[in-house]
């Protein structure tokens, strides 16, 4: 841990991520509508700040005032999107979805992937063969079909409202998570296979090394070899690789929402905003800039954090 704290960039990244999480949690209080004193206007019409739309303000440039008589004097700090919704507000609220997707999906993918790849690489032989063929099978599955099937089945049942038993439980969990369960499942469950392959490759490489032989010679059991010797060595590149996947997860969530399986409109997420905004790239680049910047900075932060974690886990740098 101490070595992690010594890594300045990693520390700044952690701080950044914590601040981002706080912003996301406190979105209701720190969004521009609340800050500029329009909270009660919104409450009167029972609208969430990220949904408040003023069509006449469509594509408003940053720092322009609203043309809405109800919102007299309100300034769009980062401009408005094509429906006249405040971009800064939506980015702040979007952090909720995007951050949770990034964290959960990355963790799930990392844990399952490393466990699978480590086991497969270590056991080798026929077990390895079978496990990797299963991974091939999963790779070949077109995820779009799976997603549509999930959407058809679960959403239709949800609408019927008569869900019972297992399906009912699943839908209950989904509601508790704000409609994100399927997104988490789809992204996490479908992305661990890349991690598994990398973990396996690393394991294969380290398996033959002397220290493993040494450990075996001194009587260490397989589990000890796996956890104390092999895993720390492969964690490094795995974590770094995982952080590189995060933008993919966020964009995948946008795709899922677009197709109807993720969050429903008008709930924003950075991926959704980027998707909506890219078409207006030439005419109104400000729509995409703020969420894209947020995304890039977050990914950078996770990346540097990953570097730091890798250094921290590197057995050769421990105890120095």
């Amino acid at each position, binding site marked *: 841990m101490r070595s992690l704290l010594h890594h300045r960039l990693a520390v700044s990244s952690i701080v950044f991520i914590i601040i981002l999480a706080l912003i996301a949690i406190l979105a209701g209080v720190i969004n521009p509508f609340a800050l500029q004193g329009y909270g009660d206007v919104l409450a009167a019409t029972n609208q969430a700040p990220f949904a408040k739309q003023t069509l006449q303000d469509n594509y408003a440039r940053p720092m322009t005032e609203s043309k809405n008589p109800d919102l007299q004097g309100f300034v769009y700090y980062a401009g408005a999107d094509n429906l006249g919704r405040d971009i800064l507000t939506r980015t702040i609220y979007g952090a909720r979805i995007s951050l949770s997707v990034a964290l959960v999906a990355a963790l799930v993918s990392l844990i399952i992937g490393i466990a699978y790849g480590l086991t497969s690489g270590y056991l080798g032989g026929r077990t390895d063969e079978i496990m990797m063929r299963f991974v091939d099978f999963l790779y070949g599955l077109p995820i779009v079909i799976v997603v549509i099937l999930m959407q058809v089945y679960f959403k239709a049942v949800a609408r019927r409202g008569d869900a019972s038993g297992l399906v009912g439980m699943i839908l209950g969990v989904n509601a508790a998570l704000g409609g994100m369960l399927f997104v988490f499942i789809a992204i996490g469950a479908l992305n661990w296979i*890349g991690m598994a392959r990398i973990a396996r*490759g690393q394991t294969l490489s380290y398996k033959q090394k002397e220290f493993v032989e040494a450990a075996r010679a001194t009587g260490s059991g397989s589990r000890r070899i796996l956890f104390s010797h092999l895993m720390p060595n492969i964690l490094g590149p795995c974590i770094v690789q995982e952080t590189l996947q995060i933008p993919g997860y966020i964009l995948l969530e946008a795709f899922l929402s677009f197709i109807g399986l993720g969050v429903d409109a008008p709930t924003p997420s950075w991926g959704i905003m980027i998707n909506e905004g890219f078409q207006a790239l030439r005419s109104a680049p400000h729509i995409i800039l703020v969420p894209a910047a947020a995304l890039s900075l977050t990914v950078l932060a996770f990346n540097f954090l990953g570097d730091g974690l890798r250094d921290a886990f590197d057995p050769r740098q421990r105890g120095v």
Partner: protein
Amino acid sequence: MWRFIIRRIIWSIPVILLLMLTVFSMMRALPGGPFDFEGDKSLAKAVTDNLERRHHLDWSEPWQFVSYVLGDDVAGAVCESVSSIPGCDKVLDGYKAGVSKGVIRGDLGMAMRQRGRTINDIIGESFPVSLQLGLMAIAFGLLTGVPLGTIAALKQNTAIDYAASFFAVLGLSVPSLVLGPVLIWIFALKLGWFPVSTWGAQPPFFLGFIPTPTKAFFMHAALPVTALGLALTASIARLTRASLLQVIGEDYIRTARAKGLPQATLIVRHALRNSLIPVVTILGPLTAAVVTGSFVTEFVFGIPGMGKHFITSINNRDYSMISGVTLVYALLLVIANMIVDIVYAWLDPRIKFD
């Protein structure tokens, strides 16, 4: 090594079959069929029934699969001899009019959405284009990513390292959906250096996939290859850097350095080889994905590759098309993974094939 290859091929066959069967069933589980609607109009029941009969969609699913893989005549022959198998009545009705020879004999079936075209035709036209685009993009990614990652690793924690990381992450965060139009805007519209879209070569190709290397071809290819390749660059660069850092700290590198080996030889011949293992790992399935058609890049640049068939065939419920492209994708995956495992052994002599 040959035993390894044979064993891998044998293991892959059930995987591919299982994959085909899963896709087969999943597609048929989706609401709607290939002939239910035309635009927003429901087709008359008689019309739908006719079309479905023509493609044997009235047979039971297992028999449809048998006919798809082995051919109509085989399915018919089986039912002629043992007509008590459930579902044989429909087969006996329809198999004589069928034309499918089965995947076994290289016949991927008839397209359901486009009349009169075979899947073999469609894939035969579009796959080589995707292959060209994909291979060039991967080459781009490797040629830019590995040096970038190496430099970053060698200059760890300096400004150069941070800059390289920054650009790498930027390359990843900017989705190709955005990158493509931006490249078109800057290089095709404003500067006029390249054409906006389309691919500069069409079938037939030399050896099935090599195009004539004219200037027009490279001009058309520049922007899409860059758009697709930049995302790979980022990934590869970061992986190379992380992995190289790890390897540089190892004992054998220190030994070699102590023995007075020049830095260049050290990095290239010793360190880089081993550190490329994670890179090669992701390259396997990445190749298969990129080569079977990056949907977004082909969409944005108007390239007639295979990528769009993945998406449109699902929307159209074109069962034979999605089965066909999935098969191609699966075959490529198997080949790519096999090559990856072979390259592992070459890169790191300590890895043995069990």
